[in-house]
């Protein structure tokens, strides 16, 4: 089976503070279309940095990221055009507090994709319907629960009709009773074939939804494989000790 590769990461390095901090030390991975890739690892292992290098929120200090055939780390690439096709969901939602939910969802499509407001509204309402929040379209973010905010943040990314979705610990800031509603939306997305890269501590989600799990530590991929391989037959000592702490 030779699936289409959507993101190809090669020898990725990211050093902070003029080389004092090595967050990534040569990470290479090919992400296939419709794949759900879950990234796990201890805190500070470079998971967020890896994810943020994929859409260049962090500019890598070495290596390359090829997205849909274009090396987006090359000079003179207009990264804004590629970011539109990579949705990102943050731990702290980062909804725009001065706009209603509907405006949060339609700002990108109207300004960047040049959709009419009516067209953008229609698409946004359809997606809101799917996550069960169509009655909150006129609310402001401050009027929503954490779980609702994160579902809206996912919809905001989806409104740009991306080819990939990047999630950075999307449920870590949520009260436990709200984690499920967000994971359900993500499972739904996986089911319809969205390519997803998910940094998470939700091992249940990883086991159930992931096609592949990456275990990172100290800026490198220590081990990768199917959920069964990673969770049931961990090879390295580092992964075994990590799993013994989180499971």
């Amino acid at each position, binding site marked *: 089976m030779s699936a289409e590769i959507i993101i190809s990461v090669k020898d990725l390095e990211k050093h902070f503070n003029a080389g004092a901090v090595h967050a990534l030390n040569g990470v290479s991975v090919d992400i296939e279309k419709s794949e759900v890739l879950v990234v796990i690892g201890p805190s500070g292992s470079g998971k967020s940095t890896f994810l943020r290098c994929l859409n260049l929120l962090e500019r890598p200090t070495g290596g390359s990221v090829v997205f849909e055939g274009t090396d987006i780390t090359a000079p003179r690439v207009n990264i804004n055009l590629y970011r539109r096709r990579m949705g990102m969901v943050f731990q702290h939602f980062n909804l725009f507090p001065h706009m209603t939910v509907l405006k949060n969802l339609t700002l990108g499509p109207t300004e960047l994709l040049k959709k009419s407001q009516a067209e953008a509204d229609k698409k946004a309402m359809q997606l809101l319907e799917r996550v069960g929040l169509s009655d909150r379209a006129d609310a*402001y973010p401050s009027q929503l629960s954490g779980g609702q905010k994160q579902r809206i943040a996912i919809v905001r990314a989806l409104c740009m009709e991306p080819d990939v979705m990047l999630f950075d610990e999307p449920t870590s800031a949520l009260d436990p009773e709200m984690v499920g509603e967000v994971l359900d939306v993500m499972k739904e997305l996986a089911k319809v074939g969205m390519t997803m890269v998910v940094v998470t501590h939700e091992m249940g989600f990883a086991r159930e939804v992931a096609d592949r799990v990456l275990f990172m530590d100290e800026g490198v991929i220590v081990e990768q494989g199917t959920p069964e391989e990673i969770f049931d037959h961990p090879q390295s000592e580092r992964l075994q000790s990590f799993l013994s702490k989180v499971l």
Partner: protein
Amino acid sequence: MAEAFAKLKESFIFNFIEGARWKYITNGLLVTLKVTFFALLLGIAIGVVVAMIRSSYDQTKDEMQPGFGKTLMTGLNNLARLYLTVIRGTPVVVQLLIGYFVIFVSTTNTVFVASMVFGINSGAYITEIIRGGIMSIDPGQFEAGRSIGFNYIQTMRHIIIPQAFKNVLPSLANEFIALLKETAVCGYIGLMDLTKGGDVIRGRTFSAFMPLIAVALIYLLLVIFFSWLIGKLERRLRSSER
């Protein structure tokens, strides 16, 4: 008591009513408000632009690749810093005199000159206010904008500035009130503002108390009125977000 009151009344009539001298006050008030208003508009325009130059340079200088863009940004940033240093390092009266006698020599429109000078002056202070407002916004807001695909300017315009503006409104209001009072030195270039108007009456009637106290009272009432108005506006803005 009644005698003192009668004296005040007499003085009032003498200073303001006779020779329609109240017109110095009302015309002067109009000039003061005009200069303050135009100066504030110009100051905000300059403040937004310079604040954007300063903070975009600070935020992107490590990532910019060498080339025309970087050279331009570095030049603009240095220019902005020079502007801030010079304006905040010299008295506004001196700037006013330079504006009138050196820069805008060919114009006799003193309202224009004063508006320009005070606008350029307050622009420097408003720059710092807006820069503080931009820095007070959660960096996650910026990242969210960029991750959707907005460029730097678009992110600023749609996401950061509207929020920063709301945060800095109290400081901008203070700047407006400070400006209103600062324009009282406009008389240095012969502009008939409120202060100068009162002073002209003093020169005509040779009585200082009535015209100068009247001028002071008018400033005070204006400040109280605008403070009240701004407080109201702020409460409205705050409630629109909840």
